[in-house]
């Protein structure tokens, strides 16, 4: 019984989500191998070898893997699984945009069901996962020989990034499918912590009224707290904040130490994305706003007054 974790990385370093996924893999109880598939990704593979609890790193390097195209990534994973020496029983991806993109392709080719977004490992074949925007938690059991799993990173602590000394093995890179190609990427440049890894998140809602106001009110608070900025779907749909800042059922799922919701009413879809935060603060002038039902500290106030006041008081 061996688990294979598909690393999320940028070729130079390992992304945090990989560490949470390793913890989930360790909870299954099998040996943990990590696949680093990329291009010129030697540094990322070396970093993966230092993760505590990892016994082997498989490094596949080639231009076909550079952009993380789902077709090629899935082929790479399938090549490792079909090699019987691997004896892989569990394939784990972080439930990030790229993990969610690739995992079902692997499951379908293996003719197995996929268990998405697990938050707990009960046994090697039984897992817990939220359904209905987190309004219910299902315990599910897979009867398939190979379990293909995506891991909700907020459900598991991060494994230590150092302390391990795994051997690194190289594998031939999968051939390019020839059916899809990478064109371009627009990455939002920011000095702030990444939303899914931040210790503090300040999040704005539709009440901010415009993208100018969103920046004007939320940025100083984020700067003061060293926080990442998030937004509700309403704020994103209205164009006040970028798409990738959306917190909620279908956006990012976050669980920081402190989540400050400003002018967010708290639709169930938004709560699904942040209700596992350790401390939740809600600032809203509507006393009936559902966000107050999950907030540890609620401040009933106009955010345009209260947020600058908060910035000054910090």
């Amino acid at each position: 019984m061996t688990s294979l974790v598909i690393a999320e990385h940028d070729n130079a370093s390992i992304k945090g989500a990989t560490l949470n996924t390793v913890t989930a893999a360790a909870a299954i109880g099998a040996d943990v191998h990590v696949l680093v598939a990329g291009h010129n990704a030697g540094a990322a593979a070396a970093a993966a070898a230092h993760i505590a609890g990892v016994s082997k790193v498989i490094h596949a390097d080639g231009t076909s893997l550079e952009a993380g195209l789902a077709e090629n990534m899935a082929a790479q994973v399938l090549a490792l699984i079909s090699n019987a020496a691997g004896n892989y029983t569990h394939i784990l991806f972080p439930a990030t945009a790229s993990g969610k993109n690739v995992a079902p392709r692997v499951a379908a080719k293996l003719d197995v069901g996929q268990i998405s977004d697990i938050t707990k490992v009960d046994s090697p074949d039984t897992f817990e996962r939220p359904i209905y925007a987190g309004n219910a938690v299902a315990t599910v059991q897979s009867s398939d020989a190979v379990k293909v799993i995506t891991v909700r990173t907020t459900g598991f602590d991060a494994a230590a990034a150092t302390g391990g000394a795994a051997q690194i093995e190289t594998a031939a890179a999968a051939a390019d499918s020839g059916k899809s190609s990478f064109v371009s990427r627009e990455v939002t440049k920011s000095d702030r912590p990444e939303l899914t890894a931040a210790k503090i998140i300040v999040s704005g809602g539709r009440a901010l009224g415009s993208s100018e106001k969103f920046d004007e009110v939320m940025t100083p608070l984020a700067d003061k707290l060293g926080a990442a900025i998030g937004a509700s779907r309403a704020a994103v749909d209205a164009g006040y904040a970028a798409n990738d800042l959306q917190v909620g059922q279908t956006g990012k799922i976050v669980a920081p130490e402190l989540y400050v919701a400003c002018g967010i009413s708290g639709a169930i879809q938004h709560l699904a994305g942040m209700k596992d935060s350790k401390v939740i603060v809600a600032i809203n002038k509507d006393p009936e706003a559902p966000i107050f039902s999950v907030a540890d500290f609620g401040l009933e106030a106009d955010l345009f007054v209260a947020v600058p006041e908060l910035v000054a008081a910090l």
Partner: protein
Amino acid sequence: MKVLVAVKRVVDYNVKVRVKSDNSGVDIANVKMSMNPFDEIAVEEAVRLKEKGVVTEVIAVSCGVTQCQETLRTAMAIGADRGILVETAEELQPLAVAKLLKALVDKEQPGLVILGKQAIDDDCNQTGQMLAALADMPQATFASKVELSSDKASVTREVDGGLETLSVSLPAVITTDLRLNEPRYVTLPNIMKAKKKQLDVFKPEDLGVNVAPRIKTLKVVEPAKRSAGIKVPDVATLVDKLKNVAKVI
């Protein structure tokens, strides 16, 4: 070029579901059912492609109970030309749906298949990718912009940290994200027209697909509740609580 669009009947997004007291699942008797919101975006995108003249026919497909016919009628009221229901009372998991859709892809030979990125009931986010793998098609998931030419699609995708653009050869599978479009309101005349459109019904056996579930739900429970918090009167108290009680800043 034909486009196949998959639509799922789910509990309406405004309904807060309740867990059944015997923990066997959630109670969906007598609650409002609607088309999965991401699938509505998928139908809208397909219809817009037809209106632009790059697509000739839009076929909506749904898999599930008899009442999915209503969901297909909604899709046809938005503008789909005809509907196909794969009718079964069995629980359908994403792999089974992907296999049913693959059988229909073989039959209809569409140039493009558009699906919602995830259903808001099981939150799986699997079917589109699984269909792409089974049909050996390229995929472009979480799309926020689609441009179609005769043999390629250029798709902008919402990924962690920003946007990414891919070029995929057709036939291909696209799954929709929220920002792809804003679905139109269906008008009464279009609802009436939709009632007259062709709707074919198949059984999974007709398509040679075994839909037996692979994953068994052992129990469904309510999530752990957060303990009730307090309201603070002013910013000074809030800062004090955060510093001295919660100790998070």
